[in-house]
Structures are given as structure tokens and as C-alpha cells.
């Protein structure tokens, strides 16, 4: 069956939620991925939204993390102070998804600015909750399209810390409870991180993609996992769920 890049990213993200129980979910692809995981690899997955919602049962595809459909019928809705303090800092989040305008060799993420902070070339949205998520969630999964503009040797501004300069123990020394980024899902490949060097490494190539294609879009000499795999394409069941139930309007998965 044919599938889109977005569908592949959703499927890879969903599969990586196998065995996980509590996920901090952003809107768009992560939202669809989390719901796909609930229908497949992780039926008891609990979704927590930054906006204050736990245990949502949306009657439609939510258009933002503040969508009213997330509230009606939810198990609990709390203030943002309670959400950040009691869920995120409280260590209840096992996996969180982040996007990135830039991500570097060690998984550090920039969503703040391109160019000088005070005289920016491009002003990006900023942290939102990403800085706290990167520090406190036990694992971070990044969803981002592969591009040389995005995958840079060193980000110009660290909004959300990854493995910092790569030396082991740095995160713990800076009192970060979370393990940092564990997975980067793109439209061409999936990356993991080398535990001893903190460095991003190519872990799985989507069907038909070569390592050279990936390297061309990455701004540093890319490490390759010894057990480099080819990503299993989306199954019929996964595609059916995405297309018929989770994003019937193909708003995000097109």
C-alpha cells in the first residue's frame, strides 16, 4: 500500500510507544501517533496535554492542544500550574514529543531564534513548555522533517537541552531528571542516540532511502548504528486506522 511521509512518521512514532504508559502530547502528528499507539501497541497509554487535560476522549480530531473537544468528557482538567507542577515536574511523564526548528548532533533543540537573539534573522515561537519537557520527561521523542537547515552540527540557541555536549553524566549533574532525547523520527529515517557519546546515530532507513541521502541533509558526519535497519512500512491496519478513524480529513497525515 502507498503511504505518505507523514503517515510513516506517525507510524514510527506510534510503534516507539510500545510499553510506554504516560505520554505528553502535542497537537498534529504526535497526537495522531499517540492515538494510533492506543489502538495498536499500547492500549493503556495515557495522554497528558500541556493545556491541563488528562484522560481526554475527544469526539473529533483536536485542532490544538487547547481544543474544547479535549475537555468535554475528559477524566480531569486542571490549571496549567497544576499540570506543570504535578504531572511534568512531578515525574509522571514517561514520553514527550517535541518538534524542532534546529536539532544538533547531541539532540539539543532550538525553537527560539535563528541569528543573534537581539537582532534575529528569524524569530521562532520560543520554548512554550518545551524547555521543561526536555528536562523533566523521562524520554523525549522528536518529530521533525529531515533537512540540512534543521539538522545542524550545533544549534545557535539551546531552547530545550538534549545531551548537551555529549559527555555522559552532564544532564544528571545539571539536576535534569529526564534521560533526554531517545528518538528522532523524520520523513527519511529514524535516529537514536549513542549512550556513551550522546551522539545522534542513524538507526533505521525508511524503504528506498540510502545513507547518503540522509547524510546529505545532516550538517555533521553522521554516525550509523551497527544494527542499522530498514523501517517496516506502515501496515494496512495502521493506515486504515489513520485514514478512517484518526485523521479522516487527512489534515495532518497527508
Amino acid at each position, binding site marked *: 500500500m502507498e503511504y505518505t511521509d507523514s503517515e510513516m512518521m506517525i507510524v514510527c512514532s506510534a510503534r516507539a510507544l510500545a510499553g510506554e504508559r504516560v505520554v505528553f502530547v502535542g497537537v498534529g502528528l504526535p497526537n495522531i501517533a499517540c492515538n494510533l499507539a492506543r489502538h495498536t501497541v499500547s492500549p493503556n497509554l495515557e495522554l497528558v496535554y500541556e493545556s491541563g*487535560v488528562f*484522560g481526554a476522549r475527544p*469526539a473529533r480530531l483536536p485542532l490544538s492542544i487547547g481544543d*474544547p473537544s479535549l475537555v468535554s468528557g475528559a*477524566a480531569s482538567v486542571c490549571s496549567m500550574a497544576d499540570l506543570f*507542577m*504535578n504531572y511534568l515536574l512531578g515525574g*509522571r511523564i514517561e514520553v514527550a514529543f517535541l518538534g524542532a526548528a534546529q536539532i544538533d548532533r547531541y539532540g539539543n533543540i532550538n525553537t527560539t531564534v535563528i541569528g543573534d537573539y537581539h537582532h534575529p534573522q528569524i524569530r521562532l515561537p520560543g520554548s512554550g513548555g518545551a524547555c521543561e519537557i526536555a528536562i523533566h520527561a523521562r524520554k523525549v521523542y522528536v518529530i521533525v522533517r529531515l533537512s540540512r537547515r534543521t539538522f545542524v552540527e550545533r544549534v545557535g540557541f539551546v531552547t530545550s537541552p538534549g545531551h548537551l555536549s555529549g559527555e555522559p553524566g552532564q544532564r544528571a549533574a545539571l539536576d535534569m531528571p529526564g534521560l533526554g532525547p531517545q528518538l528522532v523520527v523524520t520523513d527519511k529515517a529514524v535516529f537514536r542516540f549513542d549512550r556513551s557519546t550522546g551522539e545522534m546515530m542513524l538507526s533505521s532507513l525508511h524503504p528506498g532511502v540510502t545513507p547518503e541521502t540522509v547524510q546529505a541533509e545532516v550538517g555533521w558526519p553522521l554516525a550509523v548504528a551497527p544494527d542499522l535497519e530498514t523501517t517496516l512500512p506502515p501496515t494496512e491496519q495502521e493506515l486504515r486506522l489513520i485514514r478512517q478513524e484518526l485523521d479522516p480529513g487527512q489534515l495532518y497525515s497527508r
Partner: protein
Amino acid sequence: MKPDTKVMTMRDAIATYVKDGDTLALEGFTHSIPFAAGHEIIRQGRRELTLCRLTPDLLYDQMVAAGCVRKLVFSYLGNPGVGSLHCIRRAIENAIPRPLEIEEYSHFGMVARYTAGAAHLPFFPVRSYQGTDLHRANPLIRFVESPYGDGPVGVVPPLNPDVTIVHAPRADARGNTQFWGLLGVQKEAAFAARQVIVTVEEIVDEGVIRSDPNRTLIPHLVVDAVVRQPRGAHPAYVQGYYDRDGEFYLEWDRISRDPGLTAAWLQEWVYGVPDWEGYLDKLESRQAEIWQRLAPGTALSEPVNYGVYGG
């Protein structure tokens, strides 16, 4: 993560989650104090407990008298509206039935400790304690210099109980727990705990809970056991369910002044009954009209519309 089916008997919930030597918080400010759970802890003979509570109230007085307790973490030792907690005073003043270690804060200090515990903050600023002797009595109360030039600020450390137990009006079977009336520190104490037992007046269909998600202060995410225990807060009250049994608070003042009477009371009302149902049976056999006496009238909240979006 917590399993999906959490409804247990009180006996099983306490036996499963409360161990000798644990640090426990049985919270509820005047309102909805988990007496039934406390009695079961006494009955099961737990020992060497550290008990945390803003206001130890009669419940901790009874648990101290029963010899369950090594240490008390608190901010106000009183029988509200009546006077002293005599059993706790005996333990502190005269080591009866055993020495009782104390760790003492003010109310906001305790609130801040639970809040910091829930959020895994290394400390919480309270802007209190300057000019008092409380931080001399408790070296865990400290001061940090404000980095904005406002001088030293009192701070307290996080409190993370092994088990928090709260009593609530209603929850669903998974543990989504709703509160109304005085809220005390129940939410903070639950999120701060490693394990949470919720005892409730009613277990309701999850549709009831989900019709009003803003009232769910403790989500199932943090709940380990749900125990259906109607009237489980007597002699305290539950808003809209029953009134406080003020007569018993007065009677306890009389009983607790005397170690012998106290022991006899524990024997009769706690050890001498198999469970809370036994306690309630005994109560009703002595006072047939008790629940009529304590019944409030009805005052329903006006509903709000959450709206249906999509579907």
C-alpha cells in the same frame, strides 16, 4: 503506572500498601478525614509509622495512643473547637505509650512541603519563620538569599509520603476522584505520594466523573486503590453527605484524658470490631437516630454546560 481495576476492600488496601515504618499522610482539613482507613491501620497493628498531617485531629490521637507511631510531622495539635489532643500530649510530654518524635511547621509550611513534594521541587519559599523560634526547633526550616535582592527567605523541603490516604465524596472505579467543599491539601498530598489510597462515599460510573472533569482533583494516574466506604469519615463530616459529630469530639476529650479509658475505647471500637461496618453497626446500636441527626438538607450545584464538540 497503576492498574485499571482498583476497587479493593479496606482490609486489602491497607494490607497491600501500608507497611511498618512507612511515612503516611492521612489528610483532610476538618472535612472528610479518613477515619475508617486510620482505624484499619490500627487494627492491622502497623508500627513505627511517621504520620504527616497539618492537623493531627482525633485520628492521629487515636493512632498514637494505639502505639502505631514513631514520629509526627504537623502544624497544629488540637481537638478543633474543644481543646487538647491528650494522647499526643501524653506521648510528647511523658513518652506514653512510647516516645514520640516531632517535626513541626506552620500550616503554610506543611502546605508548601506537600506542594514541593508533588512537583519534585528541592524546596519551596514560604516567606515565613523570620523572627520566630520555629526554625530553631526544626532545622529543616532554612533560609535562602533571594537572587533579586529581597533578603533571606524562609524555605521548607519537599514532603513525599510513602502512602497518602484521602477520603472523598466520589470516584470512579479507576480512581478518578472528585471533591467539593473544603479542599485542604488533598490534591498536593496525593500527587506527592509514592502510592495513594482513596476511600469514598460512593463509587460512581465514570460518566458522572467525565461530565465534570474540573472537579477531578486526583486523577486515576496517581491512584492505587479505591475503597468504597460510606460514612468513612465519621466523626468528621463529608460535605453534603453528613454533618460532623460534634458530640464525639467532646466525648473524646473526656476519654482521651485517661489512658485507661482510651485503651478501653480502642478495644471496643477498633480492635473489637472486624471492620468499619462493625464500627457503624455499633454506632447505630447506641444511637439509632445518629444519621438522621447528622443528615444535612439538599443544596445542589447549578449545572454547567461543557458542550459537545464533534462526534
